[in-house]
């Protein structure tokens, strides 16, 4: 029942947007309310984990299943989805898009959300793959919402690179199935996670190593792990800001979820050193590419994409550092979701106000748009890992995990790269916050309007500060259970 309440609202929302022609802003408002239902369902699905009772399942042959890892991801995805739909263009404020564009946006963004939710609760590896492939297709429709040379280029690169990547992930999935079938024989639920985990220790190690290589390359392309990240700056730079927010926080989390599930299976076959080694290497490369690209950034939306790459690197590092590292990485995932979505919404508003996404065109945010500037500062400072925001805690835990596993050199290099990223972002932030604004001077009315517009984002800030000061009991239980599932 809860699963229906989770998956149906975005589907109904998409249908509503499809049926109502031409687009009316009431559609946007109703869709925002529907997303609240999905959020409530996701929170309710966390309940069984905290109570320690049976994992809820749904459908014939346990088609859908929500254990603690899934529940964690569900809350992240529905949280950002609600934020996106509430702050979407065309919902209660004058939009810069035409009704046709807004209708297309509402249809596909809701289908995109539904696909992500399906990927996270699917019990079957194949169904998860289908859902993730569907997310590529649906998001590709919205990136070029306004058809310009740049947006067409960005979306072509996105869809080509992502589709090739997903095809390789499918190759890895088939190899995993091949191994299972060679061992156990054909079976209808061979591709279910619990079944795979149960027989993992009997599977052929060489085949699973090869399968994981394909899976990591494939889903890693979707997550944006270097060197397969090249579509990210283009896509995030050209897509409308709410979509960038959704992609950089929720979709990224879903891709990492897929890698994590497979890691659990492959670790059961070959032990953890193989997957850990791969993840550590890729994490370090991602962090390195991100740190140096941040120095050269000229466009603030692309800067946020490189910041995503930096955090991708950190999360990969965490996942490669054993149970403590995995705990830290999952916490970092939550914090990153909160911070990244916050900053992308602000970036969208700034782009509208200044008419450009180049850093050098944006000056004097604190004088022209104090609330926007303030949130920029909060968001970027959170992203570079300053206390009292949650990212500081999770980064600290990752470091701790690294030192506990006697990897001082690795942690030293990580810290150096983080420092480079830190300095670069502060430099860019300074240039944007201070200086002479190229807008008219603000009046009280403008400032008041902004306060209301960004009210939902203060929830993000509050949660970031909360997670930076303490680790609430429910969150800790959820994370601990998730780590147990993955590192058994």
């Amino acid at each position, binding site marked *: 029942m809860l699963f229906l309440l989770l998956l149906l609202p975005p589907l109904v929302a998409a249908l509503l947007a499809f049926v109502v022609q031409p687009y009316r802003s009431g559609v946007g408002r109703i869709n925002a309310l529907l997303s609240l239902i999905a959020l409530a369902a996701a929170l309710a699905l966390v309940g069984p984990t905290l109570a320690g009772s049976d994992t809820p399942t749904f459908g014939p042959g346990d088609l859908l299943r929500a254990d603690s890892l899934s529940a964690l991801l569900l809350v992240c995805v529905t949280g950002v989805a609600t934020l996106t739909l509430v702050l979407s263009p065309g919902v209660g404020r004058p939009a810069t898009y035409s009704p046709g564009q807004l209708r297309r946006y509402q249809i596909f963004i809701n289908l995109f959300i539904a696909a992500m939710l399906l990927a996270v609760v699917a019990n*079957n590896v*194949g*169904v998860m*793959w*289908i859902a993730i*492939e*569907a997310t*590529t*297709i649906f998001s*590709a*429709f919205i990136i*070029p919402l306004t*058809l*310009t*040379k*740049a947006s*067409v*280029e*960005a*979306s*072509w*690169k996105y*869809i*080509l690179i992502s*589709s*090739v990547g997903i*095809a*390789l992930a*499918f*190759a890895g999935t*088939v*190899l995993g*199935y*091949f*191994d299972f*079938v*060679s061992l156990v024989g*054909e079976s*209808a639920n*061979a*591709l279910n996670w619990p079944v795979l985990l149960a027989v993992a220790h009997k599977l*052929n190690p*060489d*085949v699973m190593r*090869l399968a994981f290589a394909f899976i990591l390359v494939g889903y890693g392309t979707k997550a944006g792990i270097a060197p397969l990240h090249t579509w990210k*700056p*283009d896509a995030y*730079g*050209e897509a409308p800001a709410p979509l960038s927010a959704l992609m950089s926080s929720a979709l990224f989390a879903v891709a990492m979820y897929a890698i994590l599930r497979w890691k659990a299976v492959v670790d059961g076959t070959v032990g953890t050193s193989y997957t850990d080694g791969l993840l550590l290497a890729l994490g370090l490369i991602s962090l390195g590419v991100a740190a140096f*690209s941040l120095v*050269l*950034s*000229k*466009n603030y939306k*692309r800067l946020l994409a490189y910041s995503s790459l930096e955090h991708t690197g950190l999360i990969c590092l965490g996942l490669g550092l054993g149970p403590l590292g995995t705990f830290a990485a999952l916490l970092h995932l939550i914090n990153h979701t909160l911070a990244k979505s916050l900053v992308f919404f602000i970036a969208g508003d700034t782009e509208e106000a200044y008419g450009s996404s180049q850093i050098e065109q944006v000056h004097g945010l604190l004088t022209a748009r104090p609330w926007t500037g303030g949130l920029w500062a909060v968001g970027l400072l959170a992203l570079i890992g300053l206390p009292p925001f949650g990212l500081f805690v999770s980064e600290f835990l990752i470091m701790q995990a690294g030192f506990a596993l006697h990897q001082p050199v690795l942690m030293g290099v990580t810290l150096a790269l983080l420092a480079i990223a830190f300095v670069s972002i502060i430099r860019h932030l300074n240039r944007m916050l201070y200086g002479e604004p190229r807008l008219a001077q603000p009046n009280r009315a403008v400032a008041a309007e902004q306060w209301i517009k960004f009210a939902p984002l203060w929830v993000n800030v509050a949660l970031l500060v909360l997670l930076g000061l303490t680790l609430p009991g429910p969150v800790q239980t959820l994370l601990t259970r998730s780590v147990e599932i993955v590192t058994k």
Partner: protein
Amino acid sequence: MNETAFAQLSTLLSGLILFFGIALLWRRSLHAYIDAFQWQSAVLAALLVIVGYFEQDVELYLVAVIFFVLKVIVIPRYLNRLETRVGGEREMRPYVNAATSLVVSGALVLLAYVITRPLVMASTLPTRGGLPLAIGLVFVGLFVVITRKKALTQVVGFLVIENGIALMAVLGTFGIPFIVELGVSLDLLMGFLVMQVFIYHIHGTFESIDVEQLNQLKH
């Protein structure tokens, strides 16, 4: 039919399928790319029928029919329509010339043989001999995508990668569970349609489908 004949036939057909994939590397006209893909898909559908016959698996017949309709009829029709609208360009001088491409594809197939040794040894199916060819096709498809300059030929390369994976599924596991197969086919069709739409967009905004023009977005 006895097992050795079946094994040899499946390996032969896999080799033919790989051949059509490699043929993409020296053809120049867009129409030739679509042709090669069509032939490759037809042979793959035939292989699905043969495996279905040997395994007495009715599901595989159904999968073969879906496969045939999708990849030999529907997708090539869309591709041809696309080619008449935006084509008229030849894949002149891809990033790597024909001779080097063929050498590279030979190396890729060799690499595939090395990588898939554990697979072939782990399998007990009579069709396992063709597994390296399937992975080789995936690599060749990747190579095609990376080295082409026209958006349409990149899409054909992607479709070839998908064929390689389908071949791998057939040879290694006699097909994947039907519901997954259905979903995958649907995804594939939708993905292809989206790419098709984008090629129209590219043609509309850039007046050509030369991906070298897609270089505006830098740092």
